């Protein structure tokens, strides 16, 4: 890095600074919502979950699925997808493939049923092109909104994905330029923030947070931009070059193992036996089951497992759907394990951070917070260096508004979800509540007389929002603490306690900041 010329260092500094300034606030939004999305499972169960004694895919479901199959249009019985809900419910999506008139692209058309896996009771039914209707396949509008905000900034496909892909590339540019600019990387891992709140103190804070989160930032930027560009640019471009534009042919070549076609009617083998055998073959929890060509002799059952303890890659076991025999472990992509398949398989667990259960997700969450600090401290550093110029002073206030307003708006979305879930459509009111929270935060930030008065106001609002959520959840009919303890449902209790602690922390910090200001005035 010290071999770079002055001109090269100047260019790298410009790349680092301007990539951060032009896209930093959007990047912060993606990082902050991504940090929340790491705990999407917990958020889903906290917001919309019911009591579950066991994972719904751990209990016998064969009879439930066969009974459900008799309730749907036979034209929808080509394939079946099965996954769990937030409580002891499962979703069974019976579908065929047709052109979606809304998009003009091939899509899944069918009937989706939500069942109680234990009792077999039918809870909900929807029909059509199901993936266009999030309410049909996701029990938590709050989790869906936060994930969608992270994945594509709640913009329509493919534009949102292209924007987040560009943000991923910008983050990668900032990481690489920051690394190349660094003269003393090892020393900066242990730099102590100089006291006094000076410009060098801000630099120390930025450098320290950035140095420690450097590898993580690169991995997230790389995997994130891959995830965004794969379906919008990569696969469509390569389908047109290598498969004459036939997306389905490419999909079949990449993701479907070769099989001998045989449309002879044959009943599906016992799903419970298949799942039990799959769990013996791969210890990680079952997350998704797909039955292809249901009712035919060439039926196949794919069983997806999360990574087992000590592993990183997902495991997919393939079964003969008619005979129930194990056909082997299915690579994530292609007909046999390969370098490309392994790299592809690493992208998702490395981005989501769930390869080692709550331990890895906690680390990913903490590093996500660190990246938020890196982004915001970099923006503050830039604006402090240019303090006095009206445009940069205004931008500095915008940074504060977004920095505090985004978490406030996310909490407002949770409030909107809990208020609307009992009697209205939470898939409508959750995003609107986010907008209302963002608008309120913006008004607070704009009318504040100076930046010093912003922090106590935002902390008060955040404290109230955090403290009120567990109370609102209970008032809206959510699981009580007694039930959560009695039935060992740790997610609900954990999120409630964390919200209460966060609320207390925000309000105490605000009071302490106010007391310090008074003492300084005296």
């Amino acid at each position: 890095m010290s071999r770079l010329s002055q001109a090269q260092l100047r260019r790298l500094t410009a790349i680092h600074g301007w990539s951060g300034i032009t896209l930093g606030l959007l990047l912060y939004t993606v990082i902050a919502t991504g940090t929340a999305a790491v705990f999407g499972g917990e958020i889903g169960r906290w917001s919309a979950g019911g009591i579950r004694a066991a994972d719904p895919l751990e209990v016998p479901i064969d009879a439930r699925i066969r009974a459900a199959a008799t309730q749907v249009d036979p034209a929808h019985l080509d394939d079946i997808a099965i996954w769990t809900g937030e409580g002891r419910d499962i979703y069974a999506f019976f579908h065929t493939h047709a052109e979606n008139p809304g998009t003009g692209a091939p899509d899944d058309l069918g009937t989706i049923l939500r069942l109680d896996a234990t009792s077999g009771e039918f809870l909900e039914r929807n029909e059509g092109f199901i993936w266009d209707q999030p309410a049909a396949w996701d029990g938590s509008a709050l989790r869906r909104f936060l994930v969608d905000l992270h994945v594509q900034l709640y913009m329509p496909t493919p534009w949102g994905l292209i924007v987040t892909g560009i943000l991923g590339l910008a983050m990668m540019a900032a990481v690489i330029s920051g690394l190349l600019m660094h003269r003393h990387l090892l020393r900066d891992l242990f730099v102590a923030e100089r006291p006094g709140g000076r410009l060098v103190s801000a630099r120390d804070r930025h450098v320290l947070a950035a140095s420690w989160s450097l590898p993580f930032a690169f991995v997230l930027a790389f995997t994130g931009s891959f995830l965004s560009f794969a379906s919008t640019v990569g696969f469509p471009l390569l389908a047109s070059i290598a498969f004459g534009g036939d997306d389905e042919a490419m999909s079949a070549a990449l993701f479907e193992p070769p099989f001998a076609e045989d449309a002879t009617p044959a009943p599906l083998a016992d799903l419970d036996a298949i799942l039990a055998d799959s769990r013996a073959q791969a210890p990680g929890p079952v997350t998704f089951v797909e039955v292809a060509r249901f009712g035919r002799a060439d039926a196949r059952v794919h069983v997806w497992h999360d990574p087992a303890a000590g592993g990183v890659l997902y495991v997919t076991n393939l079964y003969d759907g008619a005979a129930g025999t194990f056909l082997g472990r299915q690579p994530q992509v292609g007909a046999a394990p390969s370098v490309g398949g392994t790299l592809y398989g690493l992208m998702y667990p490395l981005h989501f951070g769930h390869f080692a259960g709550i331990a890895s997700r906690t680390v990913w969450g903490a590093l996500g917070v660190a990246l938020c600090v890196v982004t915001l401290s970099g923006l503050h550093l830039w604006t402090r260096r240019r303090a006095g110029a009206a445009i940069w002073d205004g931008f500095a206030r915008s940074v504060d508004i977004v920095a505090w307003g985004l978490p406030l708006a996310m909490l407002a979305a949770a409030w909107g979800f809990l208020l609307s879930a009992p009697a209205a459509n939470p898939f409508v009111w959750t995003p609107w509540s986010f907008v209302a929270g963002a608008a309120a935060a913006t008004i607070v930030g704009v009318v504040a007389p100076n930046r010093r008065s912003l922090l106590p106001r935002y902390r008060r609002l955040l404290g109230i929002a955090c403290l009120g959520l567990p109370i609102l959840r209970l008032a809206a009919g959510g699981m009580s603490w007694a039930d959560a303890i009695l039935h060992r449902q740790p997610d609900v209790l954990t999120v409630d306690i964390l919200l209460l602690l966060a609320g207390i922390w925000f309000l105490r910090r605000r009071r302490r900041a106010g007391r310090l200001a008074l003492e300084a005035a005296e």
Partner: protein
Amino acid sequence: MTARHTGAFVAARRIGGALGGVIVAYPRAARWFLAGPAALLASLATMAAMPLWLPAGAGGVDDIVLAVVLTPLLWAVPFFYACLEPELPRCAAMLAGLTLGQALLVAVAMG
């Protein structure tokens, strides 16, 4: 070499020379162009051509999957090269050669 080939070679040298002159006359604009659209075109051309020269691997799909998985690097390498290369005409020649060569491969394969 026929007269036609010689004529094309001379014309290419003249165009290259003229472009080199423009690059030297406007280095900042040239750097922006090379690090921006040129790097993007180079990355797209490389991604499009990879199935033609990358082996398919044991799974029969590496030529496609690697092109997609490595998308961020396919952009980052020409971008940082364009930002750090001190000789702008050399940078332009490298990116142009990379882009045109791979685009030609794709055109021939699809034609």
